[in-house]
């Protein structure tokens, strides 16, 4: 069988991918108008931000014949052939029209001037980028989803950007007027000009004949050298009419539930298809159409059901979501003008059935409540908005979890049970849920939890226990070696997951140097070499600089060491200096120089306390109210070397201006007139989180005792690689407060004693290593040639420093 697909975009790509994956044995030919293969149009804006075409391009399955730059001009249904603009004739047994849509350019005077663009293809974006180079301002006509994306792109290109929307508010198809107002606030705060209820009178040219501005219907002129039209799309149905296929009154190729046109040999899918009187512009339903058509071509009976037009997206950092209906007998609204959050639920007149919702600024209700559309609400509407995070109970089996790929909760549960899936990655691979827009991933996680999957806390195949359980076993039974632990409580000989965990537990409980005896074999390479491995196999060295305070003489020593060993130097975010490019045999020599000058290990390599940042504090700063540096130094010296489930970061600010960014740390301290405020659970990184106020106006002594207990409780009970932020959310702030401040578990004396033992037993790991010939012997590149440096390591120069010469990975893998 010969399947010919006209058009090559995301829908077309999904169609051939589905056919190929399901073992279609006929010939597949795709005729694409664009000069390049199908790419992810949803992520188009990321192209301007630097993503490559290759990165955005979908893979083409093996065996598919792809003809690019090949616009189809006619269909001959009699002879079953299509003809392209360059005269090529392609015969078919089954024809699939996936021609998509084209941007609608409203007929305004001047709309054809040089400097006017649409926002649809990579070529469009290239042209916009080129024009923007010589421009200072731009305007987007259309304040819908795509219009705002285009505006974000112009902003990213450095233009002063305006958005002109004919409707009364932004994104009128996704949000109501109240939501539009809140959204406008966000967009304006980013520096964009927003004009709503504004028609376009004309586009005017400058003396050079190019676009110079846009005149609104009210006569006001918006200066712009770049104009982007984003006023909706029109289906590309021009092949259908002349071929005698039915076309809707407002465009679109009419199809039945199996995506077939009036001619059983011809299908239409995606944005060009008109199903049950509806055109679809969102990627989710279009991909579903492709899968339905593929199933029909393979002889199946799949049907396309009226699709859920729910949307959740993040535009310029603002979450916007809409699900279900946009009106109802009753509605409940939550607004927080300070943080710019607007959430509205539409419910039936008895307030029991959820009809739909709109979110701006925080789309949590979308994740938790969307599956309940058309069903009984799981609670009182107002409370659901306030506690959206918890309202996840008992999703019905037939509730659609992933609307992009039309996957129900039942299917996810079946996949978990039948295929033994244990994580989101497995669900994605097995069901496709979560693979398109990703907004349902939090829901997938909850379903996993509900299915009891997370109940298995087994660290790995060698231990059935969680890290916290292993910690208690080691602590209570006084286990001192991995071998004893794995023999009595585990199986096998461990792995890269459990060994570093056990190493960390043994170190937290004080078992001497981390390279003593069997412990050495448990350490990850960083701990094993007391330095941080870098991409070319060399290491970086970070000496401790407590509180970021350093004398000129010591600064000079660091500079001399870096110069003498040819190391790259960089100031870290934690107010320290990182020295890169050391080979293993150089490490002890570098440490010797540093230790002799009074430095010690900064534990940058360990899951341990890293650094306590500080601002300059009351000693120098005219605003400071406490000695931030003095406290930071004493805290860093107190907790240095303490091994924990993950790295620990801290900071001390000398006043409420918070220059040390203490609220982004695991434990942060901010000075008050009366003492110190302690904040906990802050995090930067992948999931930023502001720290919570734990206790206020503490004396220094109270502060230290509170941090001692907080940190030790975390060390005892957190999961592997769980930062305090996630741990705190799991334990609950109130619970941790009770344990630490009120001793609700009666363990505080124990936590205090454990910290005292740590402080008393602290020793510099670098000094211990260079003073022990047995340990020193391990710091060689080659056991049989200790004096030979690794010849595979090479450097080149950049900005007056060294950088590694890297082997291209393609060459590496082949």
């Amino acid at each position, binding site marked *: 069988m010969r399947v010919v697909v006209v058009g090559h975009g995301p829908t077309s790509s999904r169609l051939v991918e589905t056919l190929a994956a399901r073992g279609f044995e006929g010939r597949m030919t795709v005729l694409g108008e664009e000069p390049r293969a199908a790419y992810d149009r949803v992520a188009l804006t990321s192209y301007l931000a630097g993503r490559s075409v290759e990165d955005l391009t979908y893979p083409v399955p093996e065996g598919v014949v792809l003809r690019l730059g090949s616009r189809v001009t006619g269909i001959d249904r009699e002879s079953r052939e299509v003809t392209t603009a360059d005269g090529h004739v392609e015969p078919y047994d089954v024809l699939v029209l996936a021609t998509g849509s084209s941007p609608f350019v409203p007929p305004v005077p001047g709309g054809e001037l040089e400097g006017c663009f649409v926002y649809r293809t990579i070529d469009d974006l290239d042209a916009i980028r080129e024009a923007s180079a010589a421009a200072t301002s731009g305007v987007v006509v259309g304040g819908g989803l795509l219009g705002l994306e285009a505006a974000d792109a112009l902003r990213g290109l450095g233009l002063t950007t305006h958005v002109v929307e004919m409707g009364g508010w932004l994104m009128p198809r996704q949000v109501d007027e109240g939501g539009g107002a809140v959204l406008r606030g966000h967009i304006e705060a980013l520096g964009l000009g927003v004009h709503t209820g504004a028609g376009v009178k004309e586009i005017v040219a400058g003396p050079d004949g190019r676009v110079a501005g846009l005149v609104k219907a009210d006569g006001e002129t918006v200066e712009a050298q770049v104009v982007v039209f984003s006023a909706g799309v029109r289906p590309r149905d021009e092949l259908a009419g002349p071929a005698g296929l039915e076309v809707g009154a407002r465009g679109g190729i009419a199809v039945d539930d199996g995506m077939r046109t009036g001619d059983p040999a011809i299908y239409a899918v995606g944005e060009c298809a008109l199903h049950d009187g509806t055109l679809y512009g969102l990627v989710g339903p279009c991909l579903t159409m492709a899968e339905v058509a593929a199933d029909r071509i393979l002889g199946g009976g799949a049907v396309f059901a009226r699709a859920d037009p729910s949307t959740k997206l993040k535009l310029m950092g603002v979450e916007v979501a809409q699900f279900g209906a946009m009106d109802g007998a009753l509605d409940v609204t939550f607004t927080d003008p300070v943080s710019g959050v607007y959430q509205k639920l539409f419910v039936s007149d008895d307030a029991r059935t959820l009809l739909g919702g709109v979110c701006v600024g925080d789309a949590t209700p979308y994740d938790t409540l969307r599956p309940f559309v058309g069903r009984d609400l799981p609670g009182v509407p107002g409370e659901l908005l306030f506690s959206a995070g918890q309202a996840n109970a008992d999703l019905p089996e037939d509730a659609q979890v992933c609307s992009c790929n039309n996957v129900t909760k039942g299917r996810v549960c079946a996949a978990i049970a039948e295929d033994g899936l244990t994580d989101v990655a497995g669900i994605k691979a097995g069901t496709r849920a979560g693979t398109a827009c990703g907004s349902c991933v939090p829901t997938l996680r909850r379903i996993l939890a509900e299915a009891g999957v997370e109940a298995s806390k087994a660290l790995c*195949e*060698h231990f059935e226990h969680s890290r916290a359980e292993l910690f208690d076993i080691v602590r209570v039974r006084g286990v001192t070696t991995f*071998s004893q632990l794995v023999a009595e409580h585990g199986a*096998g*000989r*461990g*792995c*890269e997951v*459990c*060994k*570093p965990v056990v190493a960390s537990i043994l170190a937290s409980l004080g078992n001497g140097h981390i390279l003593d005896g*069997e412990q*050495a*074999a*448990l350490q*990850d*390479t960083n701990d*094993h*070499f007391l330095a941080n*491995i870098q*991409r*070319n*196999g060399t290491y970086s060295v970070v000496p401790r600089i407590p509180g970021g305070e350093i004398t000129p003489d010591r600064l000079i020593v660091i500079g001399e060491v870096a110069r003498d060993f040819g190391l790259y130097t960089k100031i870290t975010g934690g107010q320290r200096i990182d020295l890169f490019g050391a080979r293993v045999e150089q490490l002890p020599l570098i440490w010797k120089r540093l230790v002799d000058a009074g430095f010690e290990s900064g534990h940058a390599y360990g899951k341990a306390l890293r650094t306590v940042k500080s601002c300059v504090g009351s000693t120098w700063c005219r605003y400071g109210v406490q000695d931030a540096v003095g406290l930071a130094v004493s805290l860093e010296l107190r907790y240095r070397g303490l091994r924990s489930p993950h790295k620990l970061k801290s900071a001390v600010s000398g006043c409420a201006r918070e220059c040390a960014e203490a609220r982004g740390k695991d434990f942060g301290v901010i000075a008050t007139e009366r003492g110190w405020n302690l904040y906990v659970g802050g995090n930067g990184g992948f999931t930023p989180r502001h720290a919570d106020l734990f206790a206020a106006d503490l004396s220094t002594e109270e502060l230290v005792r509170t941090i001692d207990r907080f940190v030790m409780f975390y060390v005892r009970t957190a999961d592997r690689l769980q930062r305090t932020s996630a741990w705190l959310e799991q334990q609950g702030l109130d619970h941790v407060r009770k344990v630490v401040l009120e001793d609700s578990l009666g363990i505080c004396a124990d936590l205090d004693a454990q910290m005292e033992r740590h402080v008393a037993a602290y020793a510099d790991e670098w000094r211990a290593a260079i003073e022990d010939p047995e340990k020193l*012997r391990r710091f060689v*590149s*080659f*056991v*049989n*040639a200790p004096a*030979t440096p*690794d*010849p*595979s*390591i090479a450097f080149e120069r950049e900005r007056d420093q060294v950088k590694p010469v*890297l*082997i*291209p*990975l393609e060459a*590496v*893998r082949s």
Partner: protein
Amino acid sequence: MVFSPMRIPREDVRATGWTPVCAYADLLPERGVCALVGRSQIALFRTFEGRLFAVGNHDPFSGAQVLSRGIVGTRAGEPTVASPMHKQVFSLATGVCMDDPSAAVPTYPVRVAHGTVEVGVG
């Protein structure tokens, strides 16, 4: 510790000679070292039971010569090393990456003669 000198037989690697690289006692249980034999970097491991394995030191995923610095363990009873760079796990017996079987590292014969570890690099 009692151990029996052993050799990992491999039909496809024909050792033309044995190169002594270090004393058996230089190897710590479950920790690797790297030997430079000609221009080849060879990662040597001693398991908890005292068995020896030799594989290429080159990590095919990162391109760096680092496998000797990985954590040694077992997966379903098979001795393994995890790349210290991005933690892909390789079988010490076959060299095949257990997380991505399309990747593998070479394996080499290794034996102990009179307390000295020798590798056979063909």
